[in-house]
């Protein structure tokens, strides 16, 4: 996971299988510079958790232990890249043009990104993008799809799902691995061509509205967090992102209409 390499050991095969359905395995050109060994071993009625031989906690069952280890991996992976601003967004590309789609929780980022997988896009992440000096680095995490959103993606709904895939961070959510679905999954830093801000709409269609860049910067600041360098670097990162990209607000009440609009705008900009 980015700059971190994890080895997980356990005396519980079921726990490892659960974790196996949570961890991401995209191709990434970044070489790990930190190694961690995480362990979950049966102890009394629960599981004793360790990091590099140090105790880090206990959990009562294998599901909770797997989630805690997975959460610890996220924390360590992000701690290893403190110089990046973090923006709550998905990232996808098509024909060499990269889109970052930001928005508040439950604005439909993960659902849109999962649907784009089946629409010919390379989808890199669904929830978190790291920013630095005008470059966007998708954060490697499986796409977490809520049960009610699965029905919005017919190709996904039609597929049989391994019960262990329902192991997303939110209880009952699907932890989707593009590789398992037969799609490429690659994490790579790169410039962004289009920035979208997703807003839910009650209509049954979708509208794409051009946004001034300074207004998009304001929206994105509310969906992002500061790097270790402080607010000055944070503002600089967000401005560098929007300044080179075309910025749109996508007001959507229809996933299909949103996908059509995105394809249209990408084709018109490529022409």
């Amino acid at each position, binding site marked *: 996971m980015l700059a971190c390499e994890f080895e997980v050991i356990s005396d519980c095969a079921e726990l490892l299988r659960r974790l196996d359905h949570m961890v991401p395995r995209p191709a990434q050109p970044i070489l790990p510079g930190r190694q961690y060994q995480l362990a979950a071993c049966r102890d009394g009625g629960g599981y004793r958790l360790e990091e590099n031989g140090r105790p880090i906690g206990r959990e009562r069952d294998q599901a909770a232990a797997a989630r805690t280890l997975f959460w610890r991996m996220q924390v360590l992976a992000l701690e290893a890249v403190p110089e990046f601003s973090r923006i709550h967004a998905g990232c996808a590309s098509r024909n060499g043009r990269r889109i970052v789609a930001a928005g508040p929780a439950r604005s439909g980022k993960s659902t849109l990104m999962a649907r784009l997988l089946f629409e010919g896009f390379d989808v890199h992440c669904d929830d978190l993008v790291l920013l630095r000096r005008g470059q966007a680095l998708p954060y490697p995490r499986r796409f977490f799809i809520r049960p009610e959103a699965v029905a919005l993606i017919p190709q996904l709904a039609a597929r049989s799902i391994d019960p262990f895939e329902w192991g997303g961070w939110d209880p009952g959510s699907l932890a989707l691995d593009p590789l398992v679905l037969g799609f490429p999954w690659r994490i790579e830093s790169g410039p962004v061509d289009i920035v979208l801000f997703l807003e839910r709409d009650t209509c049954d269609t979708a509208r794409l509205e051009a946004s*001034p*860049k*300074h*207004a998009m*910067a*304001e929206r994105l*600041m509310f969906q992002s967090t500061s790097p270790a360098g402080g*607010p*000055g670097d944070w*503002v*600089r990162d*967000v*401005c560098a992102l*929007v*300044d080179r990209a075309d910025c749109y607000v996508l007001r959507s009440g229809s996933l299909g209409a949103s996908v059509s609009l995105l394809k249209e705008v990408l084709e018109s900009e490529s022409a």
Partner: protein
Amino acid sequence: MNWEAYPRCVAGIQVNEVADGYVVYDPHRERIHYLNHTAAVLLELCTGAVKAGDLPAILQTAYDLSEVPVTEVEACLQKLFDEGLVS
């Protein structure tokens, strides 16, 4: 509004230019300001060498306006004063 003053952009603020405006970080007040193009031009003109009373006419010329935007400049300049971006 003191039209005889010579407003000056305060020192130490971080100005980030985007194509249609500025995003300004003020480390003294720990605030971020999002300026449209007109406000950004006005901030640029606050060098301490331009009299406030001359700013409406300068903007009228810059944007080729039919009328002198006195009210608009006053409101924008007052906002820049209030937010501590000019003194």
